[in-house]
Structure formats: structure tokens, C-alpha cells
């Protein structure tokens, strides 16, 4: 078989991506789908800010506003931030640890398609009688009372895409445990791999409670269950607990990989090894662990009693310590370094003060009695946008610029990148800093409008202007991406010149089998070590050129996910339409039969032969 990429028809490319099990292509799929959902969520955010720009506005009606705010939160968390992180994890982690692919390429594809169909299902609600309207937290009493099918779309859509996330999490864990190249000990793993590892463990343990919570909601709404019906003995607080046992770790599922990206970028552009590597690893693990101990701080006003509130308040504050350690280690990495202000580095530098601001307001809210005032106000809105945008979105944008040449062998325009950064950075602070004060002045969150006599007019207007800056920034970014793709100027290996980790040592474009020979890792920052020793190859090899075993492409993951998508419509209309139950069964049959087909056939993959590998350059050096 030829290893040289040929010009393919559009249909062939499409089929290739529908059936691919290659982590690099799945990364691109995640990037595209996540990017589209990010833009949808962004448009929803703009609608929110337009509505709130002036008091007593009627740009968006009351009920519609609740749908928009719900979909904005749900889309951004589940369909944009997490998939975009998965894009980078898929693109980078196998290369960073010297693996030819992830542990379960088939499941990797299945995970993506489940996320994708779940996301599509959720968004179809807009066209099928209205989107969910109980907030992304979907608290039980309101979500059970919500008329129409919005909440059903929420529960079923998230169930499907959540399943995909769980699969992805397990996949990364096994990949990192089993597939590291020789010499890549745990304490030599790059920080992004470490944070992927911890975040995946969080996915593994945090998503099942959400799964259960969503099932309870599905049973209550569609199959006459009584979990949340207090007249029949049900209890809505169960939902709050299950949701936040998932929801709090979710914050770290998003934040830790972003920290990981910054921990790669800062040493690269400071040309200096990460300060306190072991402390950084320990802090990452500790944050992940503590993330499970603090969920109830989202429920201080639920009425859990003083003792529970006090315990969770103290536990929450504890998380500030390892986070602080990370901040100072990043600063000290730059201290004494040689700092170059590239676009990714600008995001990293913008991240530090922004995230510190988000972190300290988190500590303020951890003080339970103070949180009685702050909870469910714009202060909270400001806080979590500082954490999610200042931490996660900055990380994603930094990663986008940083890893673009790794994924596409071409570089995003640096000037436009910097313009995007400044617009986004200024817009972000203008939008959200002021919202802290709106909260303190008594403005509750999730209000579709507000009266003019309450002293909130000016700050809301400023906030809305800030949002315009962010929107323009995203437009510039999209233009940058389109221009870069049109130009398609190859940049080759190690485009940032100071790459330190294994992924930068691979020739570009990355061969589909990644490593012709498995590398031997001789220390932290493998590539840096090889470069310092003048090794032009960039790698020391652990084995001679041998046959490489590769998995076969498969359309089955796509069909399995599609079956769940079909079945979800059956569940949604259960008890309402005669065809509901047959469709539910049909969908599940599609899924299980294709799963059975997969099991019954021996799928052993294929081998690339040694001779082909030796003939093939596998990209330019």
C-alpha cells in the first residue's frame, strides 16, 4: 500500500473522516465540531448581552431568554469546551508519549460520534418546539415542571454525548498507562499528558453521577417515575447533589487540561524547563482529588445546615493552595528565562492574572455566609466566566495557535493572532469584571430583564459593549483560520523553534503511523535533550524499523452513535406518539446489531511492512 497521500475526491475524504480511527483525524473532527458549537454558544451569549444592555428591554421574550441562557451554558460546557480540549488531547497526547495511536482507536471514534450526535440532538430542540429552559444545572423541580420537550432534549442529548465523553476518558487513561514509549516514566511525562491523565480520571468518576441524574430525570419525565415528585415521596435535592458531584469535578475536567497547555507553552517560550515539575504534578493530582470533596459548596443556600456548610467551606478553600502553587511555578518558570511574546504566550500571560482573579473570587464564595449573598447573583456569573474564559478558553485559544502547526503543518498568522488576543482580552475583562459589582449591587443571575430603578443600568451597558469586543475577536480568529488554510504554507518540524517535548520531534506532516521507530525517552523534555546534544534526528530510537500494526477504519462507530440518536427520538415522544416505542427499539437495535457485528467479525487490523516504511520518507525532516 502506498503511504503517500494522494489527492482525493470530496466523497473519499468525507468517507475517510466518517470511518477514521486515527487519533490525529479524530482530533480534527473534535476541533471542527467543537469550534462550530463554540460559535453557536457565542451567538447565544451575544443575544443575552443585547437583551441585558438596557433595562426593561424586550429584544428577547422571557421564555425564549431562558432557553438561550440554558443552551449557552450547556453548549459551551459540554459541546464546545470539552470537545475542543479533547481535540488537543487527541492530537497531542499520543505524540507526546511516543505512541502510535490511542489504546482503543475504535472507541475513540465511537466517543466522538456519540458526542457529535448528542450535540446535534440537543440543538435540534430549537426546531422541535423549543430548547431546554431550566438552566444548564436543570434543577429538578423546575425541569420536571417545564412544559414541552426542551428538558427531554437536554437529558437525552447529554446522556448520549456524556457517554462519548466517558469513553474518551477511559481511552486516554489506558493510553497513558499502557502506551508510553520506553523510558517515558510517569515522572517524565509532559504536563499536558499529566493533566489529561488526571482530567480523564475525573471524567471516569464524575460522569456516572451525571448519567444517573439524567436517567432519573428521563424516567421522571418520560417513563412516569417519581424520583423528584415530592407529592409521591420524591426529593429534588437528590438532583442537586448528583448534578454537582458531577458538576464540580467538571470544572477541573476543563481547567486541568488548560493548565496543561499553559505548562507546555510557558517553558517553550521562556526557553526554560518548567519550574518545580514534581510540585506541578502533585498539585494537578491534588486538585483532581479535592475536586471531588467540595461539590456541596454549590448548595450553601439549599439548606444543608451549618455543619455541612462549614465543612464544605473549609474543604473548598483548601483547593486554593495547590492552585496557588501552580501559579507561582509558572511565574518562576519565566523568571530568569528568555520570554518571547508569541500569540500562545500572550494567552498564557493573559491567563495568569485573569485566572488569579477568578480563583480569588472562588475563595470568597467558599466562605459560606458570604456566599449566601453572592450565590446566584451576577458575582457568580463573573466568577465562573473568569475561571472558564480566563482559564479554559484562553487555554483553548493558546492551544489552537500553539498546536496548529503540529496538526496542520502550517502556522496561523501571528499578527492577526495578537489582534485577536488583545480584542478578546480587553473585551473579556470589560464584560465580566463589572459583573462582580452587579452581583454585589443585588442583581440575581438568569434574569431576562431588570427594572431601571435599581442602579444596574450603566454596568450592564458596559458589560454588553465588552461582549462586542469578544465577538469581533472571534471574527478575526475565524478570518485568520480561513486565510491560513487558503495559503497553506508548510512550516515543517519544530516551527516554534524551542519545542521541548516529543511531539515536536516528529517530521511534518506527521505520518499516519506517527513514529517509524518507537522513540527512547531519556528524560523530561525529550526533544530538548536531543537538540542540546546536537541530534539532528530529534529522537533516539528504542527499536529498529519493524512492521507496524495498524487498526482498520470502520463506519460502525458512526452507525452505533446514529442508532442512539434515532432511539432518543423514540424515548422523547414516549407516551405521546404511537411510533415512539418502535422508534426507540429500532434505534437501540441499530446500535446493538452494529455492536454485535463488530464483535462477531475478527478485526485484526493490518501491518505496514518494514520495506514500505524504509522506502517512505514519512514527511520532510
Amino acid at each position, binding site marked *: 500500500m502506498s503511504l503517500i497521500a494522494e489527492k482525493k475526491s470530496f466523497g473519499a475524504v468525507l468517507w475517510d473522516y466518517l470511518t477514521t480511527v486515527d487519533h490525529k483525524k479524530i482530533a480534527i473532527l473534535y476541533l471542527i465540531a467543537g469550534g462550530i458549537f463554540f460559535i453557536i454558544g457565542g451567538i447565544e451569549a451575544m443575544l443575552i448581552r443585547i437583551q441585558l444592555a438596557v433595562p426593561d428591554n424586550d429584544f428577547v421574550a422571557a421564555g425564549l431568554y431562558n432557553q438561550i441562557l440554558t443552551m449557552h451554558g450547556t453548549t459551551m460546557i459540554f459541546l464546545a469546551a470539552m470537545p475542543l480540549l479533547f481535540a488537543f488531547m487527541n492530537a497531542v497526547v499520543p505524540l507526546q508519549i511516543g505512541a502510535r495511536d490511542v489504546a482503543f482507536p475504535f472507541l475513540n471514534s465511537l466517543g466522538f460520534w456519540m458526542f457529535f450526535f448528542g450535540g446535534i440532538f440537543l440543538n435540534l430542540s430549537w426546531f422541535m418546539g423549543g430548547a431546554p429552559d431550566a438552566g444548564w444545572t436543570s434543577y429538578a423541580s423546575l425541569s420536571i415542571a417545564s412544559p414541552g420537550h426542551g428538558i427531554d432534549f437536554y437529558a437525552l442529548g447529554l446522556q448520549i454525548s456524556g457517554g462519548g465523553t466517558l469513553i474518551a476518558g477511559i481511552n486516554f487513561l489506558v493510553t497513558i498507562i499502557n502506551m508510553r514509549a520506553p523510558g517515558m516514566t510517569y515522572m517524565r511525562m509532559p504536563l499536558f499528558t499529566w493533566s489529561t491523565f488526571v482530567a480523564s480520571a475525573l471524567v471516569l468518576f464524575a460522569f*456516572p453521577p451525571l448519567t444517573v441524574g439524567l436517567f432519573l430525570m428521563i424516567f421522571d419525565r418520560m417513563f*412516569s417515575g417519581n424520583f423528584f415528585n415530592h407529592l*409521591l415521596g420524591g426529593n429534588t435535592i*437528590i438532583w442537586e447533589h448528583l448534578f454537582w458531584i458531577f458538576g464540580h469535578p467538571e470544572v477541573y475536567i476543563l481547567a486541568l487540561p488548560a493548565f496543561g497547555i499553559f505548562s507546555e507553552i510557558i517553558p517553550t517560550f521562556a526557553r526554560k524547563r518548567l519550574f518545580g515539575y514534581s510540585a506541578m504534578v502533585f498539585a494537578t493530582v491534588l486538585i483532581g482529588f479535592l475536586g471531588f470533596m467540595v461539590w456541596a459548596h454549590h448548595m450553601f443556600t439549599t439548606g444543608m445546615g451549618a455543619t455541612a456548610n462549614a465543612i464544605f467551606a473549609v474543604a473548598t478553600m483548601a483547593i486554593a493552595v495547590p492552585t496557588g502553587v501552580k501559579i507561582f511555578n509558572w511565574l518562576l518558570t519565566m523568571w530568569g528565562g528568555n520570554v518571547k511574546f508569541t500569540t500562545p504566550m500572550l494567552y498564557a500571560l493573559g491567563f495568569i492574572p485573569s485566572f488569579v482573579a477568578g480563583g480569588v473570587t472562588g475563595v470568597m464564595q467558599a466562605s459560606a455566609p458570604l456566599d449566601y449573598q453572592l450565590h446566584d447573583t451576577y458575582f457568580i456569573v463573573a466568577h465562573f466566566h473568569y475561571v472558564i474564559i480566563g482559564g479554559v478558553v484562553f487555554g483553548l485559544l493558546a492551544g489552537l495557535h500553539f498546536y496548529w502547526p503540529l496538526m496542520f503543518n502550517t502556522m496561523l498568522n501571528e499578527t492577526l493572532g495578537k489582534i485577536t488576543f488583545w480584542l478578546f482580552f480587553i473585551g473579556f475583562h470589560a464584560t465580566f469584571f463589572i459583573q462582580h459589582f452587579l452581583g454585589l449591587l443585588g442583581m440575581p443571575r438568569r434574569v431576562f430583564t431588570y427594572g431601571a430603578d435599581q442602579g444596574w443600568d450603566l454596568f450592564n451597558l458596559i458589560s454588553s459593549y465588552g461582549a462586542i469586543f469578544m465577538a469581533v475577536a472571534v471574527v478575526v480568529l475565524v478570518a485568520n483560520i480561513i486565510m491560513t488554510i487558503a495559503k497553506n504554507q508548510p512550516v515543517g518540524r519544530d516551527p516554534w523553534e524551542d519545542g521541548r517535548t516529543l511531539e515536536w520531534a516528529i517530521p511534518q506532516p506527521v505520518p499516519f503511523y506517527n513514529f517509524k521507530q518507537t522513540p527512547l525517552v531519556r528524560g523530561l523534555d525529550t526533544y530538548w535533550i536531543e537538540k542540546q546534544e546536537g541530534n539532528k534526528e530529534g529522537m533516539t530510537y528504542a527499536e529498529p524499523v519493524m512492521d507496524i500494526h495498524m487498526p482498520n477504519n470502520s463506519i460502525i462507530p458512526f452507525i452505533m452513535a446514529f442508532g442512539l440518536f434515532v432511539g432518543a427520538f423514540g424515548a422523547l415522544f414516549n407516551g405521546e406518539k404511537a411510533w415512539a416505542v418502535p422508534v426507540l427499539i429500532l434505534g437501540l437495535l441499530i446500535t446493538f446489531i452494529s455492536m454485535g457485528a463488530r464483535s462477531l467479525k475478527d478485526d*485484526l487490523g493490518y501491518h505496514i511492512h518494514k520495506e514500505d516504511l524504509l522506502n517512505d520518507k514519512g514527511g520532510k525532516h
Partner: protein
Amino acid sequence: MDLNSKYTPQSWPEHPEQATLEGKNKFVGFWLFLGGETVLFASLFATYLALKNKGPSGMEFTTQGLFELPLVFIMTMLLLTSSLTSVYAMYHMRNYNFKAMQAWLMITVLLGAAFLGFEIYEFNHYVHLGFTYDQSAFSTAFFTLVGTHGLHVLIGLGWIILLMIRNAKRGLNLYNAPKYYVASLYWHFIDVVWVFIFTVVYLMGALE
């Protein structure tokens, strides 16, 4: 990996389920999956405990009045025994004795099916008493917890049967050994969950 290489009990590796990278990945991945499943059942248990005996005012159903321990005890014995027989099956897999492994798996499946039969009988009995799924929060939580376990048993049965059929002619090799192994892991897990259900739902319910 070559499916055609023939093994003898001597050349068969000591840990066939982990002899290949794919096998190792399945082994680790499945243990992790069971970790997630544990959290899933923990959440269901917590929900059940919160809603136990909760219903509309004046509800006549309580754990004490409802559960019949002798039946549940028989079910427990069936499932525990099936766990043991699946251990035998794995013992024979390690010794490269395909026929014996299939036979013990067959017994495992029969025991599991018997368990499931009793469970269906039990649920049916409750429904006839008026303790239906939508009767109360208690009934919803009970059927969801125990039913989720029952669904796991059903999936486990389907899985093991499928493995037995598809490999009947192929025999044991390093490609399907890990599959057998994780299926048996799954079966043990189901058994462990049942022990908790037996204790928390039935024993603590009937005796307190």
C-alpha cells in the same frame, strides 16, 4: 497478531489475557470502566437510600412488608454460584482447555438466567400487589436500582453467549482470551453489586 498460531497448554502464556498490547489495554480499560460503574451504582444506592419507604401519605408498602427473603436468598445463591463457575471457566482458560471453559461458562449462563427468571417473577409479583413503577418514589427508586442490576445481568448473559457462539469453532487464541477474561470480570462485578443489593436493599430493608 496471528490467529493461526496453535498453542499447547505448555506454550500458552500464563496470563493469556495480558499477553498482547490489545489484551493489556482491554484489561486496564475494563478495570477502569468497572471503576466508573461502581460510581454509577453508588449513585443509585444513595438515591435508593434517600427514597426508601418514601411515598404518598398513607402508603402501605414498606421494605418490611414487601420483601420475601427466602426468594431473594435463592437468587443470591444462584448468582454467587455463577460467579464461582465463571472462576472455573477462567481457570480452564489459563490452562488452554477450551472445552472445559465453554462448559463452565454454559453453567454460568444457566445460573444467571435462572437468577433473572426469579427477578422477573419477583418484579411481576410486586406489580400485582400494586407496587408499580409509578406508585411512589420508593417504588421508582427500588425498580431502578434493582432493575439496573438486572439489566447488567441481561447484558452479561448476552455477552457471554455471544462470545461462546462466535468462538465455538475458532477455539482459544490470544485475540479472544482477553475478551473472555473481561466478560468474566464483568460477571464478578455484577455479583459484587448484587451482594450489596442483597444487604442494603433486602436484608437491611426486611430486618430493620
